[in-house]
């Protein structure tokens, strides 16, 4: 493969056969570079942390969604039944709070679930149909049985040859340059 100008390179990517090898490689590279991605066919415990994953954010937004859903539901019921149009239904009090609980609960759950899902997507920067990494040969195996480790060109002090050397030392199945 020919040497390229770093600016045309998106990342330098190594392909591994199994999670264990990937783990070790990740640790090694992480010691040297900051912007490292790993692509696996299924979640691998601890890998994200190894890559320096900090803020998850999903639980927080789930809580927010839940509170919004529940609070909104109860307010809506109280406002419509007590303030906006009070009507005597079966002699029950206008503010029949026990009856207001079920919708409140349901909407709490709904709000939380939607928030969790959306937070997961957006924090992950999805949906993103077009991504340079898809250009990489063999990358379709990332959703089957291969494990990839990519050092992004944006990494401070990134140098293709140095990175290639580093990766080569980790016995990958192959190493490829992913064009930007």
């Amino acid at each position, binding site marked *: 493969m020919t040497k390229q100008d770093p600016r045309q390179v998106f990342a330098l990517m190594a392909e591994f*056969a*199994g*999670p*264990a090898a990937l783990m070790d490689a990740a640790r090694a590279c992480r010691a040297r570079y900051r912007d490292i*991605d790993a*692509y*696996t*066919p*299924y*979640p*691998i*415990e601890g890998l*994200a942390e190894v890559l320096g*994953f900090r803020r*998850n*954010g*999903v*639980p927080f937004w*789930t809580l927010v969604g839940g509170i919004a859903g529940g609070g909104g*539901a109860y307010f*809506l019921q109280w406002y*419509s039944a007590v303030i*906006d*149009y009070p009507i005597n*239904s*079966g002699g*029950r009090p206008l503010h*029949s709070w026990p*009856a*207001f609980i*079920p*919708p409140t*609960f*349901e*909407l709490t*759950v*709904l709000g*939380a*679930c*939607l928030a*969790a*899902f959306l*937070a*997961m997507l957006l*924090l*992950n920067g*999805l*949906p*993103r*149909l077009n*991504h340079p990494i*898809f250009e990489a040969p063999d*990358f*379709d195996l*990332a*959703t*089957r*049985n*291969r*494990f990839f480790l990519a050092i992004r060109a944006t990494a401070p002090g990134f140098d293709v040859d140095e990175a290639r050397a580093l990766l080569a030392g980790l016995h990958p199945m192959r190493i490829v340059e992913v064009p930007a």
Partner: protein
Amino acid sequence: MAPEAALAGDAPGPRYSGAVITDRIAGIVLARPTHWGFLAGLGVSAAFTVLFLVAVGYLFAVGVGIWGIDQPVAWAFAITNFVWWVGIGHAGTFISAFLLLLRQHWRTSINRFAEAMTIFAVAMAGLMPILHLGRPWFFYWLAPYPDVMNVWPQWRSPLVWDIFAIGTYIIVSIVFWYMGLLPDLATLRDRARTRGKQIAYGVFALGWRGEARHWHRYETAYLLLAGLATPLVISVHSVVSLDFSFGLVPGWHSTIFPPYFVAGALYSGFAMALVLAVPLRAAFGLRDFITERHLAKMGTLMLVTGLLVAYSYGVEVFSAYFGGDAHEIAIMEDRYTGAYAPVAWAVILCNVVIPQALWLGWVRRSALALFALGLVVLVGMWLERFLIIVQSLAHDFLPSSWHLFVPTFWDLATLAGSIGAFALMFLLFLRFLPAISMAELRKEAHHEPMHQ
């Protein structure tokens, strides 16, 4: 995570490697030619779907009077179907959410199609209350929205709670199911060899590329959803049961209903799951993914929930006499000796007596036996709901109003049609989406090789 186990996950050689799993399951959708049996099933279910559409069309044209409902039995088939379908819809989420929390790893090979089953069942269920309205074109009046009448829903009505419970349940089920599908859609996108399929699956895969951080958030969200879905499942059928226990009709007005209905729901849910799983694994050669072990576990769950239901039957009768309310007692006596007694005893037979066979090991291991039992329980549970709803109404406070319900052709057509529509949707799901979660299986394979 032992390295050799890890090796078992990827390196070619041992069975059930990630590659094999992926290719086998993705193959069903992408490569495998359509089976003639599949087409036959599709045809039959399509025919019944048409019947459903005809029945609904006629219903809208003429009115709910085409059904057998009367005074005092103003609810019958439509609501029975509703409760029955919602119940069936419970197993899916229960399996995928509740068992996930309990770390029941065997669930991985059945949760996907169970969730699909849930969605389609709840869709059918959601339709019924709308169909049964006297003026269905005003169904949206049950939802709160600013209108020129300045009138709101009546929040004390369990029917309004229903809207929220069912609505929430179907949305959450779909989200949960779709989220589980994301990685598999990515797999299909990458395995697909035609541009059309690549685009179709690719769009819905939302560009999933299996990045480690993504996986991390993904698992968090999935776990949260599971945690939220579990109480939701319980709440939904509890709310449905309130449609009855909230009313003061003798035979309805009972505090045991929520747990009673939830148990019944899971009971029928597992039954349906079995009824679907057995032919599924046979037709698509998935015997080594959905193993006897899986079936046996579902059988056990069915037995447990069945016993809960049986207990509830007992308590119902007991509390009537223990409570000493004349009307309640009258209802119970009429239930087991009156005009609807045959139904009542059929319920006992289907839901209590026959399922005791599940104590026998060989029954739990025999796919065929489980399939048959599933059908029996499904019938039994439908009859149970029919009994609770119709018999109680037909025999309430003032003897002068007592009147029996007799179904009409259109009642039966609606029920049969809804089953057809359900089957149609499920078959299409099998054709176009992976019936078993590949990503999760890969993970499982990597954790512990699946030869037990």
